[in-house]
């Protein structure tokens, strides 16, 4: 009997169901990813008026995006590659892109959940209420920004094969992004570093998310930041795919 190849949609659905189940079973790790931005948002309650709602929400969303892309996605890919899970999938009649597409779909769901959570906590705790256009634009820009960190994560698993080294590297990069990004943008670390941070993946993502929350504030600088963000996403993703190997041997 000659077997036929299954429909790509059916394969994708099966992979997606398994990946969402895996995410659900690892929900504690997912909750930790959400926890950091939510805790920051709650702890900033008293100073949100001074720093502005857009600054607070965009900072928390950007921190969450960094955690999802660098820690959630990257570490799970490195771990599953090391265990041979991808190799087992690849000997089935599965187009390789569907394996990654399913993983990325899960991350998009995570980004959406994070953004909505920040919006809800922002509205209820910090009383930062946006217009419907602000919420929609904010979500779209969060997804665009998420692509940068997923691409960066892809690049890290492309460059580093050992899952423990990937784990350590992503934590280091995450910490550096958050600390340098947060303090650098405020000018605490000097003017030249402030300029670097503004045009870094952290700064451009924060800028587009921030200005999208209040669409009236969108400027030429924001459009430039969006272009740079897209550029980062493309470069990181292309290099990440080019360098990626399905096994660690």
């Amino acid at each position, binding site marked *: 009997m000659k077997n036929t190849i*299954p429909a790509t949609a059916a394969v994708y659905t099966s992979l997606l169901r*398994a990946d969402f189940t895996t995410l659900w079973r690892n929900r504690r790790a997912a909750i930790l990813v959400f926890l950091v931005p939510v805790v920051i948002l709650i702890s900033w309650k008293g100073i949100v008026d001074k720093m502005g709602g857009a600054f607070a929400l965009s900072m928390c969303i950007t921190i969450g995006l960094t955690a999802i892309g660098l820690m959630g996605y990257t570490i799970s890919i490195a771990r599953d590659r090391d265990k041979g899970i991808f190799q087992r999938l690849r000997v089935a*009649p599965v187009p390789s892109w569907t394996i990654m597409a399913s993983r990325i779909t899960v991350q998009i769901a995570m980004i959406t959940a994070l953004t909505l959570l920040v919006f809800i906590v922002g509205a209820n705790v910090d009383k930062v209420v946006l217009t419907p256009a602000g919420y929609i634009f904010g979500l779209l820009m969060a997804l665009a920004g998420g692509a940068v960190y997923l691409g960066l994560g892809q690049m890290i698993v492309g460059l580093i094969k050992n899952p423990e080294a990937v784990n350590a590297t992503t934590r280091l990069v995450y910490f550096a992004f958050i600390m340098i990004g947060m303090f650098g943008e405020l000018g605490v670390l000097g003017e030249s570093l402030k300029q670097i941070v503004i045009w870094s993946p952290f700064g451009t993502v924060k800028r587009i998310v921030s200005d999208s929350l209040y669409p009236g504030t969108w400027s030429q600088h924001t459009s430039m930041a969006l272009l740079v963000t897209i550029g980062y996403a493309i470069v990181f993703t292309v290099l990440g795919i080019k360098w990626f190997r399905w096994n660690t041997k």
Partner: protein
Amino acid sequence: MSTHEHTPILQVNGLEVYYGAFQAVRNVSFEVKPGEIFGLLGPNGAGKTSTLSAIEGLIRFRSGHITVAGHDVRQKPLYARANMGVQLQSTSFQAELTITEIIRLYAGIYGVNMTAEQILAVLAEIQLADAAGKRYGQLSGGQQQRVSLVIATIHDPSLVLLDEPTTGLDPQSRRQLWERIEAIREKGHGVLLTTHSMEEAESVCDRIAIIDHGTIVAIDTPAELIQRHRHDPEVISASRKGRITLEDVFIGLTGRTIRS
């Protein structure tokens, strides 16, 4: 022996595999027929897994042709894979999923519709019905191998590839695994396996190829291999039991040097 004379399910012709400048497989050719268990034996690093990986489409080979059920693995990789079931040497499934969920996942991937009752029946067949809700990571090595073999054959493939399937199994699990492999043969499917167990290969395989340094040095039925090489001085000097076994032939042909 239950070898049927039909069109080969697997044909490998002039296979050459390189890793950079290192040639791992040199001009390897063989075929597996329906209802045949074909053993690929060789010392560590001889080229067994590289050959299997080329068939499975996991590595690119420099030259040669491989067809599975008539499908060229390079031109129609998905069709070739749809007709083969694979048990990798270090197969792992998502440790967070239960074995029921893993079977459902792979059934979906191979385009097989299975109800919850059918999945349970499959698990009952391998004496794992009680573990249906257990996560893969909680199973013993033998149980994991049984699940792995079930998934390799879930779509009733014409060809089953098994890379050292009995490694690390206790005698009971090994016996049950061989019974399942022989059942696959009885259904008329072809089986290509690698193993380091010469006793198992001698008793189960219909034909055997011995590969060393990437080249097939002998290919025949176990009985014929023993008969043909029983007077070779290297084989006689390798004999320890007073009679020539397949292991003696293997040692005689591949040498006594321990490989990495």
